[in-house]
């Protein structure tokens, strides 16, 4: 299931309403030519709730996470964090629930750090 707009906003901590549509993020993006949807469109599409189209686009893997857009946005919108949130949501979706609490006792291994189990929970959302 593709996460909702609210969930993307919550994961990223970004407020898309702060965007004044100046396009400085896309003016600065070194990966611009590689992208189907450019940073300013990301912000706009999340604001409009078009998460599904974004999640299906290869653009989310073209972002270099160089954070130039975050650094230069005059309004502090942080587009790269939005892209990261969508990418994360898609990755978490893949494979679905690979680990349920019931599986743990079978997997339990005294040599396995507990943190690994916790991390597994964090990666794959329900």
């Amino acid at each position: 299931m593709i996460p909702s707009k609210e969930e993307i906003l919550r994961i990223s901590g970004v407020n898309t309403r702060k965007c004044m549509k100046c396009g400085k993020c896309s003016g600065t993006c070194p990966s611009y030519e590689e992208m189907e949807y450019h940073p300013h469109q990301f912000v706009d599409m999340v604001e409009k709730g078009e998460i599904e189209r974004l999640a299906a686009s290869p653009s989310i893997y073209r972002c270099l996470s160089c954070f130039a857009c975050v650094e230069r946005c005059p309004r502090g919108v942080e587009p790269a964090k939005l892209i990261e949130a969508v990418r994360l949501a898609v990755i978490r979706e893949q494979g679905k629930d690979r680990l349920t609490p019931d599986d743990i006792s079978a997997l339990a291994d005294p040599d396995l750090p507990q943190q690994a189990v916790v991390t597994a929970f964090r990666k794959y959302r329900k």
Partner: protein
Amino acid sequence: MQKIGVFVCHCGTNIAGTVDVAAVAEALGKLPGVAVAADYPYMCSESGQKMIRDAIREKELGGVVICSCSPRMHEATFRKAAAAEGLNPYLVEIANIREQDSWIHRDRAEATEKAIVLGKAAIEKVKRNAPLTAGESPVVKRALVIGGGIAGIQTALDIAEAGFPVDIVEKEPTIGGKMAQLDKTFPTLDCAACILTPKMVECAQNEKIRIFSYSEVSKVSGFVGNFRVTIRRKARYVDETKCTGCGECTEKCPQKKVPNSFNLGLDNRRAIYIPFAQAVPKVATIDADWCNMLKNGKCGVCAKVCGAGAIDYKQKDTFIEEEYGAIVAATGFRPISLSRYEEYAYGLSRDVVTSLELERLMNAAGPTGGTLLRPSDGKHPHTVVFVQCVGSRCEDGKGKSYCSKICCMYTAKHAMLIREKYPDTEVYVFTIDVRTPGKNFDEFYRRAVEEYGVHYIKGMVGKVLPEPDGSLTVRASDLIANEQLKLSADLVVLAAAVEPDPSARPLATLLTASMDTNDFFTEAHPKLRPVESPTAGVFLSGACQGPKDIPETVAQAGAAAAKVIGLLAKDKLVGNPCVAHSDEMLCNGCSSCEKVCPYGAIHYEEKEFRGPNRTVLKRRVAAVNAAVCQGCGACTVACPSGAMDLHGFSNSQIMAEVDAICR
């Protein structure tokens, strides 16, 4: 017992629509001490006022409560009506049952109940009111204008025109301010100097105006009508009364490496200088940071060449003290520093300039003699890129959250002038929005696009990269085409945000005038008192109040002058009697009130009191200058011993109001 009259206003349906006014009048009429209670559709009308006056006369009322709109609206009206019947105007109280009741509640029963409670509180207060008489103070019929830019110049000229003497204090060696640095002015494209310098000369020649150039205000005391100001006249090492402004010294001075601040460091000047040809006063000034004679005693060329004998290396700062009735702040603005906007390469490449620098590069009296040349190699630029909103509308912690207002128009002007003079030069303007409200302003911008072929692109520049070949690569968004552009430019012009001049903040402290978070002076009311500071007697002119262009500045300067003239035309000022006073027997001399007073109205004095057994005790006690006190009440809250009290709003009155509400 004092007889009190209660009058409840309907305000048409404004109050009566939500509050049962007849029930309010009936309930309040039953309270002890209330001799008459009535309601009427419009208390502020002639007949409403007559109703109040008749009641005062016939029932011999000793106090009046009006349940109506905010006291800001009609307190003065009702006080006047009471005074006309011989009742002290400060025995009138207003219960605000409109803004604080009918307008904010829907439920009629609740609103009616609240109106009764507010009325009760006012009745309890008026019972404790004492008749007050406002004091009078004389007015010094001279004004001080701080800042000699177009705002200060216009204010001074208008005040002088009305016949009052004015002093202009300007921190630079000449008046003229930012406008003197401009080339042309929008939207008519007339040359800035041609319209400004006659006004500067008028200031110099007007016998009502004195110009203190190269001077700063260092101390302000007193109050509206009676300010006492100390002005520091900085040592310019030239006797102003002797210097003829011939300029011989500025040509012979051997120190040629001084960055020319008037040209924003785009060229150099000598250590002794006259900022520009039309400077007023046209008097040389020695830059003490660069003068060899002042630094190590080796030179003295200027003194040798000066035919007037005006050079005085031993000159010191002098202080003069003057009295003024009114003070106008006209400290102006400056462009922000762009050091934190590294992406635009300002500071990396000399061919990235600010718009103010471009004004100098295009000005006939500028470093290039008016020919647009790249600062790096002196070549003619063929592609010029303008970047708008650099530091404006920013919430990135580096810029300003506001729109600087003037950039859209001056950039359209620059773009047009470049296209006019150099048709072979391509001009690109990157904008977020084009904001051109104003008479003939949008037409002006459209002319740049339609007649002059300036390329306006909706989108921001993300990065400017200086290339090894001296060109500048501009990476930007074209949002309409949904493209990222890479342009090769010869010159990049940044429309830097404007901010208040840094001298404004310390001045506001001296004047006890309030400022907003951006250090712009705050006006007494954003709509209805736009040229007055909340501090009485202090007025605002020009960009120190907010970003504005020349036409607006001149209009505001005239408005400030009108307010000053209105004040100076009075022979006496009637004060506000609702001021603080201290009970010397309770005061323990702790200074708490002095520290919290935002107006500097409280001072301490040693006083002798009778002690036990015929001894004399000396104690430090607070004293309030009634003319300076604005009656804010901060001291009454701060005073730990309850010695501070406010006339008309005494602690006992406020407690009585609270009691009435809680009962």
